[in-house]
């Protein structure tokens, strides 16, 4: 390929070089635009309601809302405690099982949880801890003497314990897999493992070795995912809606109710509430970073004090216990979910249903066609767009020869760090301003904001690991950059692309708030139906919806896992 500088680069190269800017605009503009259009109504400027003056009425209404203080406290406590628990358990599991085959086994057991949408996970947890749930059925009546379900407190307990439990169980696998992803990076992973071994040889207990040697290098790479978890936990709506109290609910849930109220004037208050949510989440993020700095400042000397042992055996046993509990809890929840979906009469305290029937599936299937169709179409379109865009950006990175800057990596996390409840409302205002009929497009676009980061992150490491010599050889044989991309690089990336596609579909399937808001309630997906049904009439029907919700992404991942095996087998022959 003899391309002289004065020849214009071909169309492909131009598209590729332009794509990172497009990506940035796509992520920044909606989030910023959304934030601005929530800021203006919060201060009273809402042309849609013919209010054109700036005032603090929204905030004073917010302030006068009964229970506003408790809403904020509930959001803060559930967000912080669940993230802290998930983070600490992740570290303990990593420390106990570092360099042990158990780490991979735990990963295999937990990774399916990652694809379970939050709503389905919440439904499953609810089945387990309810007064008539699996736990109390297993203990009744032989131990407890309960013939009727007891007057319990879960779910919907006032302290948010159910929410914390649900969030911790859901976020733990995410953080663990993120950490394992970091350790799977060839150079860094190898270096850390070697250093760990050296520490062991110097007589450090395995757990101490992990905390003193591995963690300081691991944490900086875990920081953004952890912050994303914290932001999500403090501002999500599915978990508190299904597991949380309602007198009053968490702040995010209350804002959602205000925003979807028939009384449009409540939207001013909702906007003010969204700003408060932003403040709460921002405060929590700052608190986390501050806490991290404090710990670093006060405890860094412990790294070099030479102490080898901090009761490692005890902690290791405790970790084993917690891990077993977590896994047992998840398995029990899933068993309960499956049993409910096929249960006939199942009176408390029987541990098993009286009979098994398929009628719940049949009835649900008859009504499910439209939500299923919507879920799949939105998921496929969104994921396809996200993958194309992510691939183009990564190609741009290779063509220009430099990695994306820190700024861009931060921007990619933007939709995950800014509470969606805050900017989504603004975004919906904007979308309605532009065109209030194209709900389907709005939903796809909004999903893209949340799918794109995951798809991008999932493709990045594989793309950067591509051996550049293949591309160089192809280029030296006269292949255009476009063909190098299509015929040399993409085939090598087959498996990662499928994984990214499955991940993208899973993320899109699980979106509740974006679908609800951007679709104006008119576009129903499996997830919106599942959340609506979760507190409704029939455990059996909501179990069916939760199972379908889990099955969709699982099918995607199984395909992503099987297809490359088949193709590589045939290609190797």
């Amino acid at each position: 390929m003899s391309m002289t500088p004065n020849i214009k680069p071909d169309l492909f190269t131009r598209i590729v070089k332009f794509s990172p800017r497009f990506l940035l605009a796509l992520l920044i503009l909606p989030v910023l635009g959304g934030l601005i259009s929530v800021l203006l109504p919060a201060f009273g400027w809402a042309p849609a309601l013919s209010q054109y003056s700036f005032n603090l009425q929204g905030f004073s209404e917010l302030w006068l809302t009964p229970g506003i203080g408790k809403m904020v406290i509930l959001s803060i406590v559930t967000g912080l405690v669940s993230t802290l628990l998930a983070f600490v358990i992740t570290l303990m599991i990593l420390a106990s099982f570092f360099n042990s085959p158990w780490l991979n086994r735990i990963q295999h057991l937990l990774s399916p949880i990652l694809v379970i949408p939050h709503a389905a996970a919440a439904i499953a947890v609810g089945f387990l801890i309810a007064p008539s749930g699996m736990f109390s059925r297993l203990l009744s009546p032989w131990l407890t003497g309960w013939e009727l379900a007891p007057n319990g407190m879960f779910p919907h307990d006032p302290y948010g314990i159910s929410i914390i439990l649900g969030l911790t169980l859901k976020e733990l696998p995410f953080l663990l897999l993120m950490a394992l992803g970091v350790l799977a990076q060839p150079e860094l992973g190898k270096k850390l493992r070697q250093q760990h071994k050296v520490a062991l040889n110097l007589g450090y207990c395995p757990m101490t070795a992990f905390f003193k040697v591995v963690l300081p290098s691991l944490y900086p790479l875990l920081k953004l995912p952890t912050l994303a978890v914290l932001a999500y936990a403090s501002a999500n709506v599915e978990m508190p809606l299904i597991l949380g109290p309602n007198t009053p609910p968490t702040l995010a849930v209350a804002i959602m109710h205000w925003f979807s109220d028939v009384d449009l004037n409540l939207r001013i208050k909702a906007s003010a509430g969204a700003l408060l949510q932003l403040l709460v989440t921002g405060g929590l993020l700052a608190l986390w970073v501050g806490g991290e700095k404090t710990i670093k400042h006060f405890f860094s000397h412990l790294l070099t004090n030479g102490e080898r042992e901090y009761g490692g055996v005890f902690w290791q046993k405790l970790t084993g216990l917690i891990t077993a509990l977590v896994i047992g809890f998840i398995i029990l929840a899933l068993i309960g979910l499956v049993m409910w979906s096929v249960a006939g009469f199942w009176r408390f305290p029987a541990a098993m249903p009286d009979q098994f029937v398929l009628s719940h599936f049949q009835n649900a299937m008859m009504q499910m066609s439209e939500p299923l169709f919507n879920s799949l179409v939105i998921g496929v379109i969104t994921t396809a767009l996200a993958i194309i865009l992510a691939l183009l950006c990564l190609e741009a990175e290779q063509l220009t020869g430099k990695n994306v800057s820190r700024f861009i990596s931060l921007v990619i996390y933007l939709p995950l760090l800014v509470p969606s409840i805050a900017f989504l409302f603004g975004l919906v205002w904007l979308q309605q301003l532009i065109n209030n009929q194209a709900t389907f497009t709005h939903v796809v676009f909004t999903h893209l904001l949340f799918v794109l980061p995951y798809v991008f992150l999932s493709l990045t490491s594989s793309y950067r690991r591509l051996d550049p010599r293949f591309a160089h050889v192809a280029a030296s044989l006269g292949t255009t950059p476009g063909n190098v991309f299509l015929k040399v690089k993409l085939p090598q990336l087959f498996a990662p692309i499928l994984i990214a596609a499955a991940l993208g579909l899973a993320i899109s399937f699980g979106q509740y708030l974006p679908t609800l808001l951007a679709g104006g309630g008119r576009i129903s997906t499996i997830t919106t139906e599942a959340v609506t049904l979760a507190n409704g009439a029939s455990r059996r029907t909501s179990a069916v919806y939760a199972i379908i919700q889990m099955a969709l992404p699982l099918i995607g991942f199984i395909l992503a896992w099987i297809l490359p095996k088949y193709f590589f087998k045939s290609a190797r022959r």
Partner: protein
Amino acid sequence: MPLTRCWQLNTRHRFGIVAFFVYTSLFIFVLCCAFWPNSVLASSAVSTSALSTSITAESIESKKLDENPNVYFYAWGGDAQINAYIQWAAKQVQAKYNINLHHVKLSDTSEAVSRVLAEKSAGNNHKGSVDLVWINGANFATMSEHSLLLPNWANKLPNFKYTDPKNNPAVTFDFGIPTKGMEAPWGQASLTFYYDNLAIDGSANNQLPTTLDQLLKWSAKHPGRFSYPKPPDYLGMSFLKYALVVLHEKSDEKIKAQLNQVANEQNSKLVLTPLWDFLNQLHPTLWRHGQHFMQSGAQMRRLVDDTELSLAFTFSAPEVPAAVQRFDLPKSIRSYAMEDGSLSNTHFVAIPYNASQPKAAQLVANFLLSPEAQAHKQTPSVWGDKSVIIPTTLSPEQQALFKTQTPHPSALPFNSIKRTLSEPHPSWVEAILTGWQSRYGVRLLEASNEHDS
């Protein structure tokens, strides 16, 4: 094999792309499968020139309509049995009058109200999207107040005579507001209770409560086994209205009369005080100590299935046996009506002033009021909704249509509603709601914080 070789050749070069297509086409295949049963989509309404605004007996006699109009019936769609009944009615009017009746399923009737209101403010006065709407109470009050309904047609329907309107105020007044021919009666609903007879076994200290007073005492003896959906849920509000009306049974006539007047600040305090006193006694004995309430009647039903609650209530009695048949409630469920009265109301169908097909909509309303349709609706296995027709106005053949079969053991026994209580004025809903929110809306965390400290 040549086929596999060819496939390999193809895939070796482009297999990334090919595989991606395979992958996506698999999904498209799945979603096509999902789509086909749903492909019968409603075609858009073809508006024909509106003829006379009311139909007469003669025009009913005339055969099928020539133009095959589409009538969009906006009706709450939360109950499978009711939806099936509307489908049955659609088939009937198709055969009889050549009308395509489309059921637009609402989760809340106020959606239809705001739609018509929006159309009015947008100047759409003739081609509205709502032709017929299932309505009563506060929604009717709003629509009639804003003149959003076609007046003076329902009283001219040929089948209206079967309701004996002269002696039957239930079909000419909706929550105390005169209907003025703006809506045709469709059915009657009453607040009925259901219980788990394994949990309330009728033993000496576990007798079934049949009055509000007994309910309070029973709940005190069996704490946590009863509750009501959190207002503004319709069913929760209905329970509060039942309590309010019963509590005023023995009050001074002057105070009692206030229930049929518009609520204002002065009479609110007077009328509602007994209700708050009652709830202050009741709440500590409720499920979750009255600090957390369920969101809906549907959730309440699930809690009965979970055996957390032993007693619950509904406005649609037939949903109880239907739920037992679906396994959503245990077999030990029995229905009954309170002896001190059942809060009852009539539900209606109305035509918005800007309906595209007012004439065809009236034909549908007339059909819904026919002895045939009313009898079918009253059949427990179909819907079980009480007919608005007074049997004495019917011929013996028509009366025979209403004969009942053996009911399901969980269904409300026939004629068990001995005493009906009429709804208070719609404005009381807002007054009760505001008072409830400020008293009980945010109890929970305050109590728990005291507990913490």
